[in-house]
């Protein structure tokens, strides 16, 4: 595993995400399928960027590219100053574990680990070897998401909302500058979804993270500093809500 020493110098002032003419193509059954066509956008540090659009518009593909899980077929993608095209698998893994927090629609907690172990795992992946400090920090994060009494439960023993709260704690466990959330309230009811939105808002406010979210949830859209609308793999519009402009 990459240690913190191996981490790449990634900071570039101002922009957390910078896409220039990024395209992504897949070959499915011998046919080329264009998931993204030549999109250009950027997200500033500490902004909340919301990506909206119908299913199949390319929202998840954008998140995958930002996370370094996929590379653009064409164009230039820089995340926190790192040129994704020029990075190999090993450095992308190190980059992800140190700089990116993930929140999935289906939570995707490691099934064999308890809530607190899921959170602590992220610190270990980031190369934080001081287990005493990790345990203390984990307890704080679990407390922050309100799950102290459920800390020693397995994901299968938690409700959907509880699992998503663990996922949020896990996403900020390694103190990443960038958090990616793929429809984080998509599987939750109204009330539970609202709790998650509040928690995300708190993460933004207290921790000062850059957050990129794909969502259909208006309550999350209301939090946005910038809204990108994707349609058929193209960037339809970029909207900066009035409260931000003012």
């Amino acid at each position, binding site marked *: 595993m990459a240690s913190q020493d191996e981490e790449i110098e990634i900071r570039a002032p101002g922009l957390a995400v910078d896409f220039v003419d990024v395209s992504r193509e897949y070959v499915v059954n011998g046919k080329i399928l264009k998931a993204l066509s030549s999109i250009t956008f950027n997200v500033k540090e500490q902004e909340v960027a919301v990506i909206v659009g119908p299913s199949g518009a390319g929202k*998840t593909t954008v998140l995958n590219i930002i*996370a370094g899980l996929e590379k653009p077929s064409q164009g230039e993608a820089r995340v926190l100053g790192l040129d994704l095209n020029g990075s190999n698998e090993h450095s992308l893994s190190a980059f992800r*574990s140190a700089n990116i927090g993930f929140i999935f629609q*289906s939570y*995707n907690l490691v*099934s*064999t680990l308890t809530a607190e*172990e899921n959170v602590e*795992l992220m610190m270990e992946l980031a190369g934080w070897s001081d287990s005493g400090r990790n345990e203390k920090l984990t307890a704080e994060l679990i407390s922050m998401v309100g799950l102290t009494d459920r800390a020693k439960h397995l994901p299968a023993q938690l409700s959907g909302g509880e699992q998503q709260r663990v996922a949020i704690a896990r996403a900020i466990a390694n103190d990443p500058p960038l958090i990616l959330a793929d429809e984080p309230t998509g599987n939750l009811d109204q009330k539970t979804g609202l709790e998650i939105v509040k928690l995300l808002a708190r993460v933004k406010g207290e921790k000062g993270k850059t957050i990129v979210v794909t969502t259909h949830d208006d309550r999350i859209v209301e939090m946005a500093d910038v809204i990108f609308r994707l349609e058929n793999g193209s960037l339809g519009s970029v909207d900066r809500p009035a409260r931000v402009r003012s």
Partner: protein
Amino acid sequence: MEVWGALIGPLGFAVKSLRRRGFHSYLAFLGLALTVATTTFLLLLGQDLSTRLGIDSSMRSTFGISWLIFAYLVLALGLIGIVGLLSTSYLVSSMISQRMRDIGVIKAAGALPRRLLSYVTFEALLVIVSSCLVGALSALLVYASWSWPSISLFKQVGPIANAGATILIVVPMISFLLAYVVASFRVRRIVGSSSVDAISKQLANLDLKSLGNPLRIRRFGSAFNLATRNVSRDRGFNKTLLSIGVCICLSMVVLSGALVSADTSASYVVRAMPPHVLIVANSNIYNQYVSLATSFSRIAPLPPIDYGNESYIISPQNASAFRAIPGVQTVDTRLITMSSITGYIKAHFASNQDTGENINTQIIPEVDTGSTDALIVGINATSAIGDWYTSDGFLQSVDAPYTMIAGDSLVGNIVQTPFNLSQVSAFGYRYDVKSALVDPLNAGRVLYAPVQTLQKSLGLTGFNVLLLKVNNDPTVLSSVSQLASSFGFTVGSQDPILKSNLAFLNGIWSHIFLIPILSLSLTCGILLSYLATNFSRRFNDYVVLKVLGANVWYRLRLLLWESWGVIAISMLIAIPVAWAVSIFFLIPDPIVSIANLELSTIVSASALSGVSVASAAILSRRIGLTTVKDLKP
């Protein structure tokens, strides 16, 4: 296929389900087919070897050594059968467990238990039948392509027609029946359980009791600690450990058993014909003795010879002269002759208790057990060079004059057990049988009697063969040769005879060693099936780790700890048990070489570790190809 897939009913359900589960269906089929194929092939091979060796050893070898070889083969094939069946039941059980959640969902949706039972059982049946058929066919193809005629040992035996027809039918049939019973039992249990338990796949697979204090060793790193949690929280962990442990243990018994048996059979020959022994005799008797001693390993006619001819006799004075040569440690004076012998079971009383308290005693009259030609060796009990493996000890100076020790090839026909009731008639005298021994001389058709008794029976005063135990000094041979030539005798070393006999044994064992090697590969295959099943069950977790930033080394280490850890624990339990079984229970009076036990352990551990490393590397690479889109909700 589309027409089948469109059918509504057990067949349509099964075909659709298997097609949609693609990778997992393939793994289940492959694991079962591989197990059935390997077990069937190994049993075919073992049966073939036994048949050929049986035909071959009826002309050579001795009964005792043949018995040792066959006992090993029977044990090895029995254990392989158990490993195969154990593996079959484990794989079927795992296959059904993977379907637990789907069964729960269908049940919760309102499917009638009876209908659900028939659907899932039929699906399992499709996999079981196809894998048993493919396994049997593969075993037949590999067996048929096996080129026996190219192996020198078995050339003279030739092809054996229809040797494995029974095995080819019975083994896949038993595998099928066992798999069906296990599948039905598992499906019935799942269908009978609550839908909630079945739907919560993770709860069903995880052991919630072991959450308390998981093993944590900081110096081994995060991957190790994660692996211990993954493995120890698996509800099927104990079952997996037991299944793999038993398979490893039985494979180890087969492997170390082969090594111990090979060493022991060689030791029987060496004990009867120790090295550094010179044979002194008249040239005719010398050649005859060499033929008798090598009849264990080669088929050659024994020309009739007058063993009691005056010119062949070595006087006691001449024999004493050899004792005076420096470097000669022992002079074993022998008088050998070939004679027709008849075996008897003495008349005796037999008692048996009937259903009440009455004890019935009856007289059993003497029984003639038959006649044959055998080599009779008159020997001086106090100066015998051989240290034979015997059932009840060798001749002693205190034994009655008409006492004999029977060669192992006479036991079971001419000489019957218990030996205290057995007698042999030779030269018109009755000899009591004291014991039996394993001896390559005349391929075990030999009887040892006190030399004075034999001399008296034959009316001779001397000996016709001297065996001289000498030290390693090469000048001893020249001194002995000088003295022998002055008496008109021939001298030769017994070492080439020993070497030839041992080479024959090594030839047999080198072919038998195919069995333990292939049985180890069967265990490796079982392990591979377990690792693949485990991987597909936890696929989602591995993808999550990759997405979160676990790099390729972390993933590799995690998979390695998970697979090798289970093997290491299994080996720690299985190897000592296997050693104990091999040493204490497998064969009588075993020769246990620490080097051989180490070799069998190293070979097994290396093969199993190799499988775990290779599978970790392959599966880690497979994870590397995944993306977020591979995550299942």
